[in-house]
């Protein structure tokens, strides 16, 4: 009898053991996931020696470090650069990739396999290998230390990923839709821009979000292609501050305040667009 089995003392012990283990694993995973964020915010709200105090909460909440970051560091210049570069890269990349991915799913007849394999290969390509060749190219054509150069580099280096995602997405839109429209006399341009693009909106949104996030987080290309403070994006701006001067006291509360301000847009983006992001992740956007 199942009910006897469930009330058997051994079963009860086993079940409560299972509950204890599961609960503790959940709690550990949860702490690992959220503690760094908590600690970042907690440190950013401290001042003076309280920064080094190993207590969970600040003894006295202070916004001193946020004042410093906002009024006495080039934070907003870098923030605006990051927004401009990431948004432009996102736009260029998604338009170019959707055109190519559509062409791939509908028009490419020969070598389709080769093409899709080279896209995947490009997706696996080590980013560090781009740095030196692109740097030398940018020196030659005068794109060094220019935001437009960074936009170009970001939109092109994100193409493989965006094409990968979108090609898979366009395959799910039935080809009969194109054919029916063509019989009705619609041209390719009309079919693509007016019919396919609206239907592919969720896929486009997902790839746009991912390109934006990649560009927002990118570090090594910005480090090598941008020199001047005025053109820096947030990651390399923060990196420059990290260096500091020898013997100078590191102000961890200021660093954490800057970090909090960098991560805030990402958290908001994640919470509002969670649905699309989840979809993109499950569709094969495994990068990270």
């Amino acid at each position, binding site marked *: 009898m199942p009910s006897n089995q469930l009330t058997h003392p051994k079963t009860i012990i086993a079940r409560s053991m299972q509950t204890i283990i599961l609960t503790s694993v959940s709690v550990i995973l*949860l702490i690992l996931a959220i503690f760094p964020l908590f600690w970042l915010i907690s440190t950013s709200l401290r001042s003076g020696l309280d920064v080094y105090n190993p207590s969970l909460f600040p003894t006295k909440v202070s916004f001193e470090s946020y004042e410093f970051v906002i009024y006495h560091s080039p934070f907003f210049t870098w923030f605006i650069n990051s927004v401009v570069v990431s948004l432009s890269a996102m736009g260029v990349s998604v338009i170019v990739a959707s055109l190519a991915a559509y062409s791939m799913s509908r028009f490419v*007849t*020969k070598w389709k396999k080769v093409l899709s394999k080279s896209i995947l290969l490009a997706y*696996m390509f080590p980013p560090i290998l781009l740095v030196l060749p*692109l740097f030398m190219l940018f020196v030659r054509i005068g794109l060094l230390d220019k935001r437009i150069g960074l936009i170009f580099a970001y939109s*092109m280096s994100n193409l493989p990923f965006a094409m990968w995602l979108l090609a898979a997405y366009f395959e799910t839109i039935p080809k009969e839709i194109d054919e029916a429209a063509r019989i009705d006399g619609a041209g390719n341009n009309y079919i693509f821009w007016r019919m396919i693009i609206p239907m592919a909106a969720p896929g486009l949104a997902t790839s746009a979000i991912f390109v934006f996030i990649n560009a927002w987080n990118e570090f090594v290309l910005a480090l090598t292609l941008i020199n001047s403070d005025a053109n820096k994006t947030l990651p390399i701006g923060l*990196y420059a501050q990290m260096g500091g001067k020898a013997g100078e006291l590191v102000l961890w509360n200021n660093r954490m305040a800057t970090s909090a301000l960098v991560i805030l847009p990402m958290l908001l983006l994640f919470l509002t667009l*969670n649905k699309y992001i989840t979809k993109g992740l499950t569709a094969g956007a495994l990068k990270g």
Partner: protein
Amino acid sequence: MNNNLLKKAGGYVDSKFGTLAMLPALIGLSFVLVYPVIVSVLWSFTNKSIMRRTTDIIFLENFIYLIRNRELWISMRNGLLYTTYTILLQILWGCSAALLLDRFLSNSVSKPLRLLFMIPWTFPVIVSVLVWGWLYNDSGLLSTILFNQGFIKEPMSFLASKHTALLAVVFVHAWSGAPLIMMSTLAGLQSIPQDQYDVALIEGANGRQTLRYVILPNIKRILQVIVVLRCVWIFNNFNMIFLLTGGGPGSVTQNLPIMAYKYAWNSMEMGKSSAVSVIMLVFLAFMFSIYQWVNSKVKGDNDAF
């Protein structure tokens, strides 16, 4: 546009529109894929350096220098160790989180928990590095707690110690990568039909047997693809290691990308740096063929790739 050229392309692409639509992406890919490969291979046979006026072709000298130098083998070993530790920890972390959310927790708990588990993913690398750098610092939380409890004799910086640096970096990388593995595994778990679990229950399978005969066969394919792609990305990782330790202390966390970077930007030896890049390309080719092999066994899963 030259009409003849477009017609020629017609052999491969079905129409003028198709060709034009493909063109910008092909130009872009040639900048970020074809051009860097060609440049790296060409420069790897030269002694190119900003410090020299002229560049000579020295054929395999760079490679011979690198192979004879211990640094290459140390970097390679570090890279392999780093990749193995990180992928194992990531998979363990991501899969247990996914199993927990899918199998053991009720919907009302697992939905908010899934969002919270994703938080590390929203951290840009530079912020992960700043936060973990602070936690690992000798005046940071970890060291302070261990010191106050008497586990260590004096405050220590976990990234500056030879014994802990590699594992400390591995932990941060696993922490930041686990959420994505969790999401992909979760997608795989959610696609397992309920009747497979029902059958296992009727047959009297215990937890371990259910895992072995129902869950694993269903997520095996997803895991294989993740593992191969991840191994490539982790092996190629530059940002995390560079920002946390810069390859140090000594060279205990230096991998091939850091080595290539140092040759190019610290000692200005573009030729040697390119040779390291070519070695990385060989590794990529090897992993790519493994990926193809894995994928050819995964029939119809993702037809185009």
